């Protein structure tokens, strides 16, 4: 368990944030300049805040009240930086072994070969960092951090410097990293797709403060948070791959409340994945429509109609399907035309191809 409480005054900006992070991936999410990288640096010991306390598994890494400041090399919080920061004078193998050689004798963690396999680095070991592509560099940086046997893995926008295809190439590796029994991961990002794909918990930051903390599924349903104002606002569903139907070119995903048909996916049946159902992609009908191309027609109950904070002519509809909740963004006029009331039974309509944007 990581507990963080930090205060620091910069010229024109004040950081005042507190949160906790458990096992798995905790995402620190917010716009650029909201202080998330500063928080990460303070946890790693690379930045000394005016005031604060950081404890990891009960041990204080930083406590300004008792003037405790553990140097970074004794915190064992490895960082994966946005720019990789590979050592240019060492080979890939030299980079990977740098932290491993310095890990305490009793420290537990995956071995060299395991990490090389996991991240697909076998063919790169003899190369110099300059001979690597951006995506390869980040995989090496990931491996190097992991091999230092950290008690906490800090990732500072590790995909931000990469283009979309490279990001899609690395994300599955990050997911594999999360799914092995590794150290807790604190993941700083301003990309929602990374939160959706990786985060078990979410800390929302804005202007140096924590707006909310909770599960990503829960927070993405809250209309009061800036998440709801984004173009890609919507519910996040945790699904399992039920079956593939290559003949029809689609995959069936099961979620607590029904099934979704989406364009054919690569994951094996039984695999768990998170799908963002963008509110703007979901339409609502009073009666089950006939003769439409839409694959997903889900009977649900309209539980809430919330005016949108950003668009005066729009509302957010909260729809319950079994145990799951979906969000739909429609014009106020649609509510009036269909005479929608909270408690009504309606059908949520979702095109299959609206769901091909998820990474992986």
């Amino acid at each position, binding site marked *: 368990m990581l507990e963080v409480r930090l205060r620091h005054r910069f010229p024109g900006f004040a950081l005042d944030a507190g949160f906790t992070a458990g096992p798995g991936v905790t995402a620190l999410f917010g716009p650029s300049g909201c202080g998330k990288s500063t928080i990460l640096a303070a946890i*790693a*010991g*690379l930045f000394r805040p005016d005031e604060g306390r950081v404890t990891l598994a009960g041990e204080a890494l930083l406590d300004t009240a008792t003037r405790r400041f553990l*140097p*970074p*090399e004794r*915190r*064992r*919080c*490895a*960082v994966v*930086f946005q*720019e990789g*920061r590979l*050592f*240019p*004078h060492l080979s890939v193998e030299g980079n990977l072994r*740098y*932290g491993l050689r*310095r*890990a305490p004798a009793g420290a537990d963690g995956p071995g060299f070969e395991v990490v090389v396999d996991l991240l697909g680095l076998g063919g790169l070991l003899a190369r*110099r*960092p*300059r*001979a690597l592509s951006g995506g390869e560099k980040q995989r090496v940086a990931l491996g*190097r*951090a992991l091999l*230092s046997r950290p008690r906490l893995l*800090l990732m500072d926008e590790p995909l931000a410097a990469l283009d979309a295809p490279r990001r899609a190439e690395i994300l599955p590796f990050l997911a594999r990293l999360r799914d092995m029994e590794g150290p807790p991961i604190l993941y700083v990002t301003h990309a929602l797709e990374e939160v959706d794909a990786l985060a078990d918990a979410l800390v929302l930051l804005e202007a140096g403060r924590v707006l909310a903390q909770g599960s990503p599924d829960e927070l993405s349903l809250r209309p009061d948070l800036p998440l709801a104002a984004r173009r890609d606002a919507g519910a996040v569903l945790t699904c399992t791959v039920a079956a593939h139907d290559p003949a029809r070119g689609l995959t069936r995903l099961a979620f607590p409340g029904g099934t979704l048909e989406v364009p054919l996916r690569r994951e094996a049946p039984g695999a768990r994945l998170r799908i963002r159902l963008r509110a703007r992609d979901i339409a609502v009908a009073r009666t089950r429509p006939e003769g439409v191309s839409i694959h997903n027609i889900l009977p649900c109950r309209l539980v809430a109609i919330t005016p949108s904070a950003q668009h005066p002519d729009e509302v957010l509809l909260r729809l319950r399907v079994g145990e799951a909740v979906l969000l739909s963004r429609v014009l106020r006029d649609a509510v009036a035309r269909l005479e929608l009331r909270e408690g009504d039974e309606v059908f949520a309509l979702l095109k299959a191809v609206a769901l091909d944007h998820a990474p992986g």
Partner: protein
Amino acid sequence: MMEGWLSAEEAQAVWLSLSVATRSVLVSLGPAVLVAWLLVRGRFPGRFLLDALVHLPLVVPPVVVGWALLMLFGVRGPIGAPLEEWFGIRLVFTSDAVVLATAVMGFPLIVRAVRLGLESVDEGLEAAARTLGAGRWDVFVTITLPLMLPGILAGAVVAFAAGLGEFGAVITFASNVPGETQTLPLAIYTATQTPGGEATAARLAGISFALALGGLMLAELIARRMHRWLGRG
């Protein structure tokens, strides 16, 4: 090989110059790295003064530097006297004195190059190394030092090439003793002052020229190799 067309005395001067330049560079390297580090990374009140002091030999006339060394390390000087009394070391008029004078004159050249080398080291890499479990000294030895190696080597080669030709400070502090303190430039000077010494002066000047040119080309070659090695080329 040289003895074929150089007199014994001329060959000795060439050899002494090479030896003195090498030794002066070796003596300066450690302190130069330390001073460069203090100047780039240090946060202390006297930094400005240290910077000026280090660069003094570049702007003060070499004869003055030689005179100052004579005052300090002379038999009755505040450093020279105890050196002789306690350790029986007498510097003046020895080849060690030549080394000391050459080292002092070359010091700012090495510091400047090392400093450039250090400034080119990305502190982010050092921070990354520390989060991977390396302490300050460990990081300096395994990350900082290798990455500033191009600067260190460039400084060493330039100081070596300049050290072959140090004149004013050497002749003032160590005098002009053939076989002991008479380096290449001193031998050339002596030859030009000696009737019939024109041929000697020309030969030694030619050697000076070749050594300097070779040194500079070597420096460039090393710099290119290093940059490729560090993945910057």
